């Protein structure tokens, strides 16, 4: 088994599961019915990708852990998602911006992963790259509408930018496991996505009349399990059934 690839796949899988969880919290509570359909769609894409990644990670590990054991039955410090994805939904502006930031990273990442040395990774990338292109479009269009909408929406959008921008940098950081996976060409180098991320987001910000802030102190720690206070509450929801009724089939 390849421990670094297993861990690097968990980083990716946790990113997708946790962001999918956050987006799914909107279901039934969206600002308009069309978004009550669109947000579960994005959540389904994210959770679908997480399932493929957990399943493959479990196969590589070879200890019989399936997608649910990896998704539900780890302690908070063992989740390796970046901090951006666990941030609370706050309002629709925060939610769409978070989705744009994540998708603007994942699109070039999955494109690069289409050339992975690992066949399963290539397969997951092939499916995900199409989905995430749609997420950029959907979230990007909303960021433009809200940024260049009313005075209130512009203020809320810029507030979301100020709040979430410190969490962007962590997406490009390479853990030692991610580095080892990149050294064998199994997964792409995260640092290499910086230019494309900036191009995608700048293009949206120009249309949205938003200003890209300078970040003095980036927020890091998710990859080593140093999560925020809200992560435990998210996990209490996510893990509730598996913890309250252990060892049962559902």
């Amino acid at each position: 088994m390849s421990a670094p690839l297993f861990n690097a796949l968990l980083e990716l899988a946790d990113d997708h599961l946790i962001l999918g969880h956050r987006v799914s919290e909107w279901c039934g509570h969206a600002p308009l019915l069309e978004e009550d359909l669109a947000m579960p769609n994005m959540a389904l894409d994210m959770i679908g990708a997480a399932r493929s990644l957990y399943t493959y990670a479990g196969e590589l590990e070879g200890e019989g852990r399936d997608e649910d054991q990896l998704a539900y039955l780890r302690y908070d410090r063992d989740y390796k998602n970046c901090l951006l994805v666990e941030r609370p939904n706050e309002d629709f502006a925060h939610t769409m911006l978070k989705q744009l930031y994540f998708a603007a990273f994942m699109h070039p990442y999955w494109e690069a992963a289409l050339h992975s040395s690992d066949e399963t990774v290539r397969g997951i990338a092939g499916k995900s790259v199409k989905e995430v292109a749609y997420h950029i479009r959907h979230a990007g269009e909303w960021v433009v509408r809200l940024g260049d909408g009313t005075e209130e929406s512009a203020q809320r959008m810029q507030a979301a930018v100020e709040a979430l921008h410190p969490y962007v940098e962590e997406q490009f950081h390479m853990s030692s496991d991610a580095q080892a996976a990149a050294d064998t060409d199994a997964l792409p180098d995260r640092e290499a996505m910086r230019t494309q991320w900036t191009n995608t987001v700048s293009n949206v910000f120009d249309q949205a009349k938003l200003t890209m802030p300078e970040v003095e102190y980036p927020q890091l720690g998710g990859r080593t399990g140093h999560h925020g206070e809200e992560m435990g509450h998210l996990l209490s929801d996510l893990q509730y059934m598996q913890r309250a009724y252990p060892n049962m089939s559902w």
Partner: protein
Amino acid sequence: MYSQGLIGADGKTEETEEFLAKFQARIDREEKIEPNDAMPEGYRKTLVRQIGQHAHSEIVGMLPEGNWITRAPSLRRKAALLAKVQDEGGHGLYLYSAAETLGVTREQMTEELLSGKAKYSSIFNYPTPTWADIGTIGWLVDGAAIMNQIPLCRCSYGPYARAMIRVCKEESFHQRQGYEILISLCNGTEEQKQMAQDSLNRWWWPSLMMFGPHDAESSHSEQSMKWKIKRFSNDELRQKFIDATVPQAEYLGLTVPDPELKWNPEKNGGKGGYDHGPLDWDEFWRVVKGGGRMNVDRIKARKKAWDDGAWVREAALAHAEKRATRRTQQAAE
């Protein structure tokens, strides 16, 4: 949306006896009535009320099941539940569009829901405290909805009938999905079986009430049958549902919470059917009139989503106007 042009259109008709007889003759020939056709005001109003209530039920129905999305016990169940709740929202959208062909807007209908003027299915005023409720809702609530809705695929109003064809296909999938959740529980541990039985105990009677009051007390039924908006009576559909569902409960090894339930070979013209105990109509009317466990919370949640989302909808409109203005300016230059 093709219906937009019809909103606010003057659908007034002079309802002479000749006009009404001609309309009824079209219905009797099983012709579909389409949005631009002349129709009696009562027909239009009945459909607006019914389709609107139906759409609202789909939208409010997202809440009890949405309650379990973040806590679904496996990733497979989580994905299926998300897709299901999304389907319900899609049905709502579909049905609001069908109602718009009769000259009302989605905004008007939404305001009527939030003000309490418009009703939605009372079944969604019951809470979902356990995971088993997600299975039971699929099995019983969607099962009862299908029983009600299959005849609507032949409803005399074209847009509603066509919408129902797709809705029924998806509901049928939901029903099987719910039943599959219960199969897993009933093949599981003692705790899981108890969870399933407790859920059936809570949902059985409310599901039977979904078919509405007894025929004798159903105020809109007779005219709706004549107009072929409705094809079977409330009691007929309820009986069909019971006859189809009791063997499914037996297969699961669950007990239907009705001590008077008994097979009667004479019923249904000698084909056999189940006799059942009386429904608690006091409870039915209490929940219809707003006194159910979740009536207040459901509307509160919908109102919160609508109010909290107002700035988003306003921004989308403002942005669209800005773009249109810029296009006009560019064209003038």
